[in-house]
């Protein structure tokens, strides 16, 4: 199989991940529950991975990173924990349903929501952002890169508005954590939500959120915390404030292994490699009759994603044909980003999405281009 669906999940993982997970299975108990060696081993591991993430995202301290089971849980925690009846929130048409659906639910509870529009390439119309801000605007929830087009959000332009109008900046880093440089302090990010199993190359079931000191979030879940058992209220100290229940220590250990690998390999090199592969693909397929490429035409303003359609062909058929005939795994359909499809005019057709890993080869990319030419000539 030629795996080109890394925006869904990275299939190949560094060997460090597997080793760390197996080590955890054999040695780690429940972190923060007791003080014997097995629980302490787990607690040390979780703490270590918090520190690794804090270093990667330039957070003030490891305790500003709370673990969740995925980016969706992190985004739900942030969105439901920050915004309440009477607040106004700005988001964009580029968002995934993991941002849109929590906001739609809040709309029913009396939260006002506005959407920043994008042009025909899915590039945000930043100049329209200031006019969306109202008296009761509390924050902006925005993707760092679209999961459909790969377009990278210019967070500097968003920050100009959040800082001048004193708004919270919540960033969905599902497609960028481990791929693009993130400096939460320099970039003025209040909450950064991430998943562990895509660009961070860790196991599924891992993720989390960075929370800036001073930002208060009402937790999504309350329950077991390992401390203050007789208090009726869940402990307020971060990060346990947002981590009720036994966490996925085995997965978090694996994520730690992945972070070791990323540090050795260098995320900058990984991004360069992915862009190089996509450029090679784009050059070979852009002349296919009827092909429509989506996203910013400048590949340096996208992460390792290339979405397209061929004529009026159903994207699901194209994806299925690629897999059936050539064993090439890509994603088709709506990609959980309904407003982005409306903007691109692909609500009915969906789009074929290719998303590469730095482990893909030139040969795999060339075979994919040949297959697409073959399909266009049938």
């Amino acid at each position, binding site marked *: 199989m030629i795996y080109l669906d890394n925006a869904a999940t990275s299939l190949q993982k560094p060997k460090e991940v597997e080793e760390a997970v197996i080590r955890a299975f054999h040695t780690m108990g429940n*972190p*923060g*529950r*007791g*003080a014997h060696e097995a629980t*302490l081993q787990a*607690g*040390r591991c*979780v*703490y*270590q991975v*918090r520190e690794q993430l804090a270093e990667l995202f330039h957070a003030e*301290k*490891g*305790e500003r990173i709370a673990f969740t089971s995925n980016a969706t849980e992190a985004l739900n925690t942030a969105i439901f924990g920050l915004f309440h009846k009477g607040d106004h929130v700005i988001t964009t048409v580029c968002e995934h349903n993991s941002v849109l659906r929590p906001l739609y639910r809040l709309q029913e509870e009396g939260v006002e929501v506005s959407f920043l529009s994008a042009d025909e390439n899915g590039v945000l119309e930043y100049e329209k952002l200031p006019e969306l801000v109202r008296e009761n605007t509390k924050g902006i929830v925005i993707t760092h890169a679209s999961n459909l087009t790969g377009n990278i959000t210019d967070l500097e332009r968003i920050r100009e508005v959040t800082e001048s109008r004193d708004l919270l900046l919540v960033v969905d880093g599902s497609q960028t954590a481990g791929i693009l440089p993130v400096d939460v302090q320099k970039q003025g990010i209040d909450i950064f939500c991430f998943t562990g199993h895509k660009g961070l190359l860790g196991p599924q079931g891992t993720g989390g959120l960075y929370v800036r000191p001073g930002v208060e979030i009402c937790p999504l879940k309350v329950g077991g915390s*390992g*401390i*203050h*058992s*007789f*208090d009726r209220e869940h*402990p307020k*100290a*971060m*990060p*346990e404030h947002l981590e009720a229940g036994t966490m996925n220590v085995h997965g978090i250990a694996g994520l730690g292994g992945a972070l070791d690998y990323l540090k050795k390999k260098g995320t900058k090199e990984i991004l360069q490699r992915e862009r190089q592969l996509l450029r090679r693909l784009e050059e070979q397929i852009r002349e296919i009759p009827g092909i429509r490429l989506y996203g910013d035409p400048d590949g340096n303003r996208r992460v390792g994603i290339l979405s397209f359609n061929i004529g009026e062909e159903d994207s699901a058929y194209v994806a299925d044909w690629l897999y059936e005939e050539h064993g090439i795994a890509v994603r088709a359909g709506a990609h959980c980003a309904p407003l982005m499809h409306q903007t691109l005019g692909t609500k009915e057709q969906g789009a074929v999405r290719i998303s590469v890993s730095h482990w893909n080869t030139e040969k795999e990319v060339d075979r994919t281009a040949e297959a697409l030419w073959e399909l266009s000539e049938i």
Partner: protein
Amino acid sequence: MRMKKKTWILTFESTTQAMAAEKYAMEQNLPGRLIPIPREITAGCGLSWKAVPEARDEILTALEKAGCHWEGEYILEL
């Protein structure tokens, strides 16, 4: 019946604070170790640092220098 002796206990606001302190203490070879919080301090659960009372100043000075946080300190007969 076991002999009880004076023990110095340091408590934390969270498990993460306790893990941060332990990491630094181990790196610096500071005396003591993490134990479950004794019931004299709180009836809840959680971790605390146990050491001989004479080590108090050395430990707190080192933890403060490292930017570690804690909740409170106690002398107990354990």
